[in-house]
């Protein structure tokens, strides 16, 4: 006969309520981990979209995301002509604000060359970018719909396709434009002084400036070899894809990661205190029953089993409910929440261990109860 199960059934309402509370707490912990994963994923998504091996940026810069980078538009041809490069494409990046139905819409505009590395592989709705001007691919997060027209700078762009999971490290949805459109937009939105200078013929004399060139290397080539080769040009620096991702995680998301990490640890600490308190009071409420069990001759194993089994039941139910809850809620978060099975499993183990440890307090109390307590009126 399982005493824990029967005790739970007897106090079902209270047990369910306790599990519900615990599940909210654990759901919170899970969502923090999910937010962290989402943050890293979002920060890296832009750098991963081109599926590049190599990033070529302005000399000495760790661009184009962590630092600004401006290089001549013909860099792509130079890089593409290197013997071990399979394909290369130019890219521009900039944040813009567009007006949309009374409100402001922040977009992270990426200019790329359709047919070359840099754009999204596929769209979830509509079509990919054609060769004509003033077309736009927008991330669904922007709220834009197919066929919608958006004014950016002096021109009006038409949404021809929608993408998914394309956001900047700041969480702004990405809009893809054809490279020349994006370059013109960059020029238009520059400060008037710089623009006048540029119009008077001062350098840069051309709008043909890009922020980075991405390249895919020929099969069997290590990106490291090309990083060196590109570095010989004084005005360029190359980073391998892994170096780029490193820069992104270190400089862009590192603080947020530590912030969220610390918060998660605090949440876990709070959870353990609460779990311990719950288990302790659950035992306190059973003092008389435990004394009776001792009186009729139940060994300590029976009593410890009762407490630990209830703790484990609470952990399992609380965690499962929390995981369910956060799975249902995750799409309502403004930024991505990524729940990895591994993270869930790790938290489940942590919670289980916490519960068993926390029940130690209750167990100690239970072992100290004198059987004579059962005799008091």
């Amino acid at each position: 006969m399982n005493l824990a199960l029967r005790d739970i059934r007897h106090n079902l309402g209270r047990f369910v309520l306790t599990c519900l509370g615990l599940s909210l707490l654990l759901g919170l912990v899970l969502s923090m981990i999910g937010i962290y994963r989402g943050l890293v994923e979002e920060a890296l998504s832009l750098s991963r979209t081109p599926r590049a091996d190599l990033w070529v940026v302005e000399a000495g810069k760790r661009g184009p995301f962590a630092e600004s980078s401006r290089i001549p538009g013909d860099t792509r041809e130079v890089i593409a002509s290197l013997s071990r490069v399979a394909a290369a494409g130019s890219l521009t990046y900039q944040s813009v604000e567009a007006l949309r139905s009374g409100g402001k819409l922040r977009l992270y505009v990426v200019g790329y060359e359709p047919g070359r590395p840099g754009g999204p592989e596929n769209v979830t709705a509509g079509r990919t970018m054609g060769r004509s001007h003033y077309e736009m691919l927008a991330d669904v997060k922007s709220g834009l719909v197919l066929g919608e027209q958006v004014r950016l700078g002096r021109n009006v762009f038409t949404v021809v396709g929608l993408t998914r999971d394309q956001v900047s490290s700041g969480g702004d949805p990405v809009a893809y434009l054809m490279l020349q459109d994006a370059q013109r937009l960059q020029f238009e939105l520059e400060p008037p002084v710089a623009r006048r200078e540029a119009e008077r013929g001062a350098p840069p004399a051309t709008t043909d400036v890009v922020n980075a060139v991405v390249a895919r290397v020929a099969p069997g080539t290590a990106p490291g070899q090309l990083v060196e080769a590109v570095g010989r040009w004084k005005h360029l620096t190359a980073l391998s894809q892994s170096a780029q991702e490193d820069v992104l995680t270190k400089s862009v998301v590192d603080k947020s990661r530590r912030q969220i990490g610390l918060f998660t640890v605090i949440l876990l600490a709070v959870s353990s205190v609460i779990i311990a308190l719950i288990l302790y009071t659950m035992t306190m409420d059973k003092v008389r029953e435990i004394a009776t069990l001792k009186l009729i001759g139940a060994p300590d194993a029976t009593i410890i089993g009762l407490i630990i089994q209830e703790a484990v039941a609470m952990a399992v139910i609380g965690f499962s409910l929390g995981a369910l809850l956060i799975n249902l809620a995750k799409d309502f978060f403004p930024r991505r929440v990524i729940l990895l099975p591994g993270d869930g499993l790790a938290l489940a183990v942590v919670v289980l261990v916490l519960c068993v440890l926390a029940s130690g307090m209750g167990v100690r109390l239970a072992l100290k109860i004198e059987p004579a307590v059962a005799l008091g009126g």
Partner: protein
Amino acid sequence: MAASITTPPLVDIQNLSKSFGQGDGRVDALKHIDLQVYAGQVVGLLGPSGSGKSTLLNVIGCILEPSSGRVALDGQVVYDGRWLQKDLRRLRLDRIGFIFQFHNLLPFLNVLENVAVVLEIAGAGTGPARQRALELLQYLQVEHRREVMPSSLSGGEAQRVAIARALANRPRIILADEPTAALDSERAGVVMDLLRKVAAEQGAAVLVVTHDEKIFDRFDQMFYLRDGMLADIDGPHTRSKDVAERR
């Protein structure tokens, strides 16, 4: 009952003392008690409130540690200046059945489970435990309430379930602390007859603490406690009817 005189007592208490607290607050609850209860005997323990009746019963049940003296149960010395048995709970489980004024049923188990649980703790399988529990409930005429939770039992029903539980492991020593205090005289009589039946059929020693004059005629022998000291009201194995007549 003549046979019981020649066999060793099931409960054998010698020079037992028990005090609570120390210094000024010290209470000598039991003073140099000698007491023997034999198989088949139903013994009454009387005395005013605070005289030490419960303390004596709890010491015999190995719930309280004596201060000094010697306690032997079922031929085995359990206490002699210190506990001699490591596993007192196992001893209680196998040899002693408790019945209390407050029935002490586990509130989260139904009637049948409350009885079966002591059998399972003692090592019986689920099936045999249920079977025996059911038999006991039938014996005590509460089997129709087997699925009910203790909170919805009447006082008499709860007490009978508690007795069923006390009898479950066929203990040779049955200790009852005011078992009839919450019952009317008819029910009290039924409970006492039942204890007599168990003593006779199982050869158990039954020790009953009570204030309840209604049941005095059910005892083979009665002891009187005052200020922690024991006095024998009448000679051993006198029929309790005589006691009632003399009073």
